[in-house]
């Protein structure tokens, strides 16, 4: 949990700085919105964390968010399907996408980067095709169902309610945490992420576990896509979900997932997602920072966070080595 502590410190620092520099930051409306966005990005971040733990990567998340985000209103509004059927198709499509990625990675041994890069292009192209680039929205319908993304649960004594996505994130996080840390399958993922061959030689069906990771990732991307569009009400095929895969990956990496695989913390991913949303918020709220350098700030902060982490780790390793050497010399 040491790894998560560092990033939590960074989050607290950015939070405090913004709170001091801006009057509107701590306003209930802003905080509620911040939590809602964090929850949505947290969900897709947890998804990609599973893939990163296997030593892979999923670049297609943003396009899956777009496919589902446009496809869901398309099914309900244009095709007039029932909400239940549309939700079923959303999860079926996400599942199939995950299975496809997993199969290509494990059976054909294609590189995850390549497979999901093609996915990134393909799903966006498909979405722009079937929507003919038209914005898909709910207009004023579906009010009840949209509440799973827009509603809040009031807590007595608090100035704002807990947004529904936050509840969904909590459920996803608890289930993911249990899966990763308390089931044999989670242990298998961590082991094969470190050393796939040794895991295989220990009797683990590594291909199936990698497949599971890609399926989890795409399912959560699909769930995220649906919640995103239910939250904002409409989606434009050409830019909905753009860069979301990078936010998800950044959240996972900030949260302690190693791109080499075998390491990942669910709480870390959530804190990483929160950090990025607070940063974005900070840039918007503090007048001294021009909004158009948003990406530069986010990029710089992530880089500093990851570099600082590495420096601390190396120093610790060096101290440990010299301690061992001294102990060895003494004996």
């Amino acid at each position, binding site marked *: 949990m040491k790894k998560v502590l560092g990033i939590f410190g960074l989050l607290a620092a950015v939070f405090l700085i913004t709170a001091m520099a801006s009057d509107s930051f701590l306003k209930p409306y802003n905080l509620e919105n911040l939590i809602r966005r964090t929850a949505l990005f947290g969900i897709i971040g947890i998804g990609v964390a599973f893939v990163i733990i296997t030593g892979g990567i999923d670049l297609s998340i943003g396009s899956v968010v777009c496919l589902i985000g446009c496809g869901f209103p398309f099914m309900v509004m244009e095709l007039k399907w029932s909400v239940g059927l549309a939700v079923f198709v959303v999860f079926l499509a996400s599942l199939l996408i995950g299975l496809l990625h997993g199969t290509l990675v494990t059976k054909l041994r294609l590189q995850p980067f390549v497979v999901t890069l093609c996915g990134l292009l393909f799903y966006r192209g498909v979405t722009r095709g079937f929507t003919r680039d038209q914005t898909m929205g709910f207009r004023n319908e579906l009010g009840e169902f949209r509440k799973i993304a827009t509603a809040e649960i009031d807590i007595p004594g608090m100035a704002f309610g807990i947004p529904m996505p936050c509840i969904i994130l909590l459920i996803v996080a608890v289930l993911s945490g249990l899966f990763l840390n*308390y*089931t*044999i*399958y989670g*242990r*298998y993922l*961590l*082991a094969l992420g*470190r*050393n796939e*061959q*040794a*895991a*295989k*030689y*220990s*009797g*683990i*069906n590594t291909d199936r576990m990698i497949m599971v990771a890609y399926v989890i990732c795409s399912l959560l991307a699909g769930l995220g896509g649906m919640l995103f569009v239910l939250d904002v009400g409409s989606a434009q095929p050409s830019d909905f979900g753009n860069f979301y895969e990078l936010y998800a990956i950044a959240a996972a990496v900030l949260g302690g997932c190693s791109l080499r695989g*075998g390491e990942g913390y669910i709480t870390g991913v959530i804190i990483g997602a929160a950090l990025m949303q607070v940063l974005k918020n900070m840039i918007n709220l503090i007048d001294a920072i021009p909004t158009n350098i948003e990406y530069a700030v986010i990029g710089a902060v992530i880089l500093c966070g990851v570099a600082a982490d590495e420096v601390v780790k190396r120093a610790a390793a060096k101290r440990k*080595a010299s301690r*061992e*050497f001294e102990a*060895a*010399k003494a004996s």
Partner: protein
Amino acid sequence: MSDDQNKPPLLEVRKVCKRFPGVRALHEVSLAVAQGEVLAVIGENGAGKSTLMKILAGVQGQDIGDILIDGKTVQLDSVETALANGVSLIHQELNLADNLDVGANIFLGREPVKGLFIDRKRIHQDARKYLEMVGLEVDPATIVGELTIGHQQMIEIAKALSVDSRILIMDEPTSSLSTKETESLFKVVKDLRSRGISVIYISHRLGEVKELADRVVVLRDGENAGDLAREEIDHDAMVKLMVGRDISQFYSRTQHAPGDVMLEVDKVRTPVHPAHELSFKVHAGEIVGMAGLVGAGRTEMLQTLFGVTPALAGRIKVAGEEVQPQAPIDAIELGMVLAPEDRKQQGVVLEMSVRDNLSLASLRRDQNKGFLNRQKEREISAEMIGKMRVKTPTEHQIVQFLSGGNQQKVVLGKWLAMEPKVLLLDEPTRGIDVGAKQEIYKLMEELAGRGVAILFVSSEMEEVIGMSDRTLVMHEGCITGELPRDELSEESIMQLATGKSLN
């Protein structure tokens, strides 16, 4: 060879010490090489030979101790400074860029240029000169990957000569050579000696050492165990210094009456040597050795039995049950397990703790409806650390920081927790120290006593002869013979391993 008392040796190593986390690799090791001398450095695996050579070649630094060249202390803190001092290492695994041609490899990093561009013509011209010195007739424009291992080795030597090396270190140079290639390597080594170049020759093939060496330095457990002058070099003297004790004690074996057939391999064809059929049996309580040269297909055979590379044809029976292992799990479920040759890549997950490694295979069996059974994990870990005498501060220690012997004990402990019926071992004592080696032999003996069928592949003659009840010998993908315990000798194994029949 120089008898001049006043002249300092070309290279001298004085009381060099080197430690790795948890292992004392070298302790006050000293040696000297005269100009034009072939010095053999021998010792068991884990005796410290490779570490010493890496220090001389500037790959690693020593902790304490001095290295002198021409009587002057030098700091060999990088490969470049070692080369500048005339020391070249010919690696066990060759370090050539096999996508480039011969000339480009010889001059890699020192390419002569003409203006902005590489002067290919000169490279090829100069390369010919060095190829001639090693007696190799290949066109410098040949892509290195197309050459045999033996020829590639010659190119490494030519490369070393091209930087005017005065000391060549050869680390197990014959381990992957054919008999003919070995002979031509010997010719080159003798030729180098006559040119006044010193060779440090590392090997555990004692026959080679006897033929080539002017002097032998023996290392044991990271220390000097003794020196032998030219006239003292004979097989028994070397073995005695290497092992440091009577071999019959080292390999403690009692014969067990073999029980039922536990492993039956019938006309199995592996993907690597599909032309040959493999058939043999291993009984309960029996230890069967599998000898052969590197590349004879022994590891491939074990991997096929274990389901890593599924068999193309044939039948495999474990404890009477027929199985076609398509993945390791199929073999494991019937009680057949493998401790692989490449321990760090296939045996353990280096970055995980001792406990997590020990329980990795049994998680599935002990699961609680998919959830981890932590209680059981702790039990297995405590039991196996005790039983295998794994030297580790705690069960949470990361396996990477254990010595090779202790890592191997973790691999074996992982499998013992599964109570196997058939234990496949691939080079079970490679790279581990003598003490741990003996413990592993004891364990093999103990398991055989409890009725486990053991099949072990080993390239160490002593080990095969010392441990097996019966030995199978492989050559180029087929089993060329079977030797009962009383017919085991280094000569009979070598005959079969080189494809000759016993007469």
